């Protein structure tokens, strides 16, 4: 690697020759403030917060995009720099609706942090007439443009990571705003609801749709039996809401907190994940034998399913017909558990805690309910909403004891555990499929080639003499790239798709880390490895088909994987949806 020597505030450091001033300064131990910059996604130097002085340069330069050169001298903290940054910030603040006290991002807002760091102690250009501009047509998220600073992080993520691009900058000058074509509401667009825009927003302009009120209502209703079901990725991220380090596993405290919030029982979506492995495994084996609808593509990620229906309908026959682990868990609770404990399924309220905003749409999908007339899952709240509920209840999260899930739907395997990270679903499925096909136990359960943070991972396995080619992909842009290869004739047998880059661990409902953090840390790896670690350390069984609970549930009620009951309760259908819904020329 070529390196160059650069002086930052008089201190000489060595850095890669293709580094930016921002990266060089980081090596020197200096964090240059940024607002619009997101590494590899949004490097446009638009917000002008990261201005620094470079010796010999005519004007101040933007550190986030300015490349270093050998012998360059940079000054990050001169009066000129401080003045320019502060003026820029004051101007941004002049057009930002500052209802900080009642904002969902209060104390977790990048703009607020900048105001504190820069010592902004008065507003010379305050606009007191800014009105809220809430757009809440989507069931997944809401937008308030009066808090938008036009950094374009959301639009960059929507287009470059997710290939959806339903939002963009409209109009010009002071009238510039983030919106959809022809000023349509987001709910009218082919948005997949992944929520990646939310976790990239530096302010409170984008938030999940808050469904906690529905949960509180159910908890207060004595006629209801309220159970919580929790996705794998929540337990390794929830701690971040309470200042714990990224990747801290708080499974036990999370269960304790849910119980103290008043849930009658706390169950694990991992059980649904284990059952998904059984169903999807059976489906894969069936399709490998018949050769039909290959490659099979996983359907756990509702953002991806929504994308497939709207942007790649030609692959709908390839989608696994399995409902997602959330829906399977909900379905079994309604059809089986309710009867077991003698509760009318109508009075069993299933609250799902998810790292995902698209799950809020998934429960509203038009699909066959396990108990007709009763939703499989009643409410979805994100990790962040649960974090808020815990704070609201005054629970001292860090001092809570570690408690176990309720056993009826709480005993699960390490295979289900890793469902929350890219590669996990495929790995879990292969552990079961390989053993079922070969009839021999696996020597090692790890499939290392499927792990890691790359957008597209590929591997080949020989199963009973036939070569099976699998691919694992996360992020919808990567997905589109892989699907184009399949369309061009490349052969795969199975593809795992997770809509968000890195999988559920970095889903749109997860705690928000600032751009400062994500630019220099890989959340996908930090949270993903926490899941792999938790799977091995906390679950004695690593294969879904060896889970005692799974075996019991199949014996008691479902029967065979892919059988008649499974078909009614655990499988679903997909249908093509328009790419330009509501537009007149939709043909």
């Amino acid at each position, binding site marked *: 690697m070529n390196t160059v020597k650069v002086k930052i505030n008089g201190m000489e450091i060595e850095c890669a020759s293709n580094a930016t001033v921002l990266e060089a300064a980081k090596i020197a131990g200096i964090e240059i403030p940024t607002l619009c910059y997101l590494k590899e996604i949004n490097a446009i130097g638009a917000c002008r917060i990261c201005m620094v002085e470079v010796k010999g340069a005519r004007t101040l330069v933007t550190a986030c995009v300015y490349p270093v050169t050998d012998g360059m001298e940079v000054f990050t903290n001169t009066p000129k720099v401080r003045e320019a940054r502060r003026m820029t910030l004051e101007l941004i603040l002049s057009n930002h609706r500052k209802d900080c006290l009642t904002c969902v991002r209060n104390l977790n807002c990048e703009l607020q942090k900048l105001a504190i760091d820069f010592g902004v102690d008065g507003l010379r250009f305050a606009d007191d007439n800014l009105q809220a501009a809430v757009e809440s047509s989507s069931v997944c998220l809401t937008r308030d443009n009066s808090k938008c600073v036009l950094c374009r992080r959301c639009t960059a993520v929507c*287009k470059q990571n997710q290939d959806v691009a339903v939002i*963009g900058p*409209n109009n*010009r000058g002071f009238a510039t705003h983030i919106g959809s074509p*022809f*000023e349509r509401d987001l709910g009218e667009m082919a948005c997949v609801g992944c929520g990646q825009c939310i976790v990239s927003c530096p302010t409170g302009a984008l938030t999940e749709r808050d469904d906690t009120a529905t949960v509180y209502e159910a908890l207060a209703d004595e006629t209801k039996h309220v159970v919580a079901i929790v996705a794998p990725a929540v337990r390794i991220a929830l701690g971040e809401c309470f200042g714990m380090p990224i990747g801290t596993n708080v499974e036990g405290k999370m269960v304790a907190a849910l119980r103290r919030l008043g849930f009658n029982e706390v169950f694990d979506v991992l059980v649904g994940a284990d059952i998904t492995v059984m169903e999807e495994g059976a489906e894969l084996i069936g399709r490998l034998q018949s050769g039909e609808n290959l490659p099979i593509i996983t359907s756990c990620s509702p953002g991806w399913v929504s994308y497939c229906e709207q942007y790649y309908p030609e692959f709908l026959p390839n989608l696994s017909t399995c409902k997602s682990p959330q829906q399977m868990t909900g379905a079994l609770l309604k059809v089986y558990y309710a009867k077991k404990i003698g509760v009318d399924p109508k009075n069993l309220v299933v609250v799902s805690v998810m790292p995902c905003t698209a799950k809020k749409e998934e429960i509203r999908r038009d699909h066959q309910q396990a108990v007709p007339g009763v939703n499989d899952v009643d409410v979805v709240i994100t990790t962040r909403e649960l974090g808020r509920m815990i704070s609201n209840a005054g629970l001292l999260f860090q001092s809570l004891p570690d408690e176990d899930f309720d056993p009826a739907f709480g005993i699960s395997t390490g295979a289900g555990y890793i469902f929350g990270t890219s590669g996990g679903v495929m790995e879990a499925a292969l552990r079961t499929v390989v053993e079922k096909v070969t009839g021999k136990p696996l020597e090692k359960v790890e499939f290392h080639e499927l792990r890691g943070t790359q957008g597209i991972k590929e591997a080949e396995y020989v199963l009973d003499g036939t070569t099976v080619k699998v691919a694992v992909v996360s992020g919808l842009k990567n997905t589109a790239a892989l699907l184009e290869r399949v369309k061009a004739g490349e052969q795969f047998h199975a593809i795992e798709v997770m809509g968000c880059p890195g999988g559920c661990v970095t889903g749109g409902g997860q705690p928000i880390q600032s751009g400062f953090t994500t630019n220099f840390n890989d959340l996908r790896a930090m949270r993903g490895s926490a899941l792999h670690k938790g799977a091995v350390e906390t679950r004695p069984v690593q294969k879904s088909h060896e889970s005692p609970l799974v075996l019991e549930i199949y014996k008691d009620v479902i029967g065979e994987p892919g059988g008649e009951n499974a078909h009614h309760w655990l499988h679903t259908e997909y249908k093509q949806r328009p790419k330009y819904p509501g537009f007149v*020329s939709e043909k």
Partner: protein
Amino acid sequence: MPNKKTSVPFTGTAEQEAKLKAVIEAQKGQVGATMPVMQAAQEIYGYLPEEVQIMIAEGLDIPLTEVYGIASFYSQFTMNPKGKINIAVCMGTACYVRGAGDILDDISQKVCCKSGEITDDGKISVEATRCIGACGLAPVLTINDDVYGKLNRGEIEPVIDRYIEEEAKGKA
């Protein structure tokens, strides 16, 4: 606000579509193809309604968001067709200081159509233009190809009425 969506039905022909497709085919894959295609589309259709913008997005394989973003950014792109009677009020400095703003407001009120928009029946459109180079006639406006200058408030309304009458006759 200019560039608001029109309510006038789209009446594009197959011939126009073929023309646009040919332009897209010629430009596709080139860096910076979007703007020239959009300009050509506006020449072909006279404006850029959503039907046309979707054709461009699909044809160039780019998001509709991008096409709309560009169309709403540049004032030279319009998303409304011109009416049979197109009233263009000059908003250059000379005209503006001599009261073009008031005249524009009067006209908008009279024909029930804001600047940059078109009446629901598609008959009259109103636009505010930049300097048309007739500052000696300030305030000046054009109706279709006719120029009316040195206007005082209240003088243009009878003229507009005449155009409306003639248009109605022409149709009958």
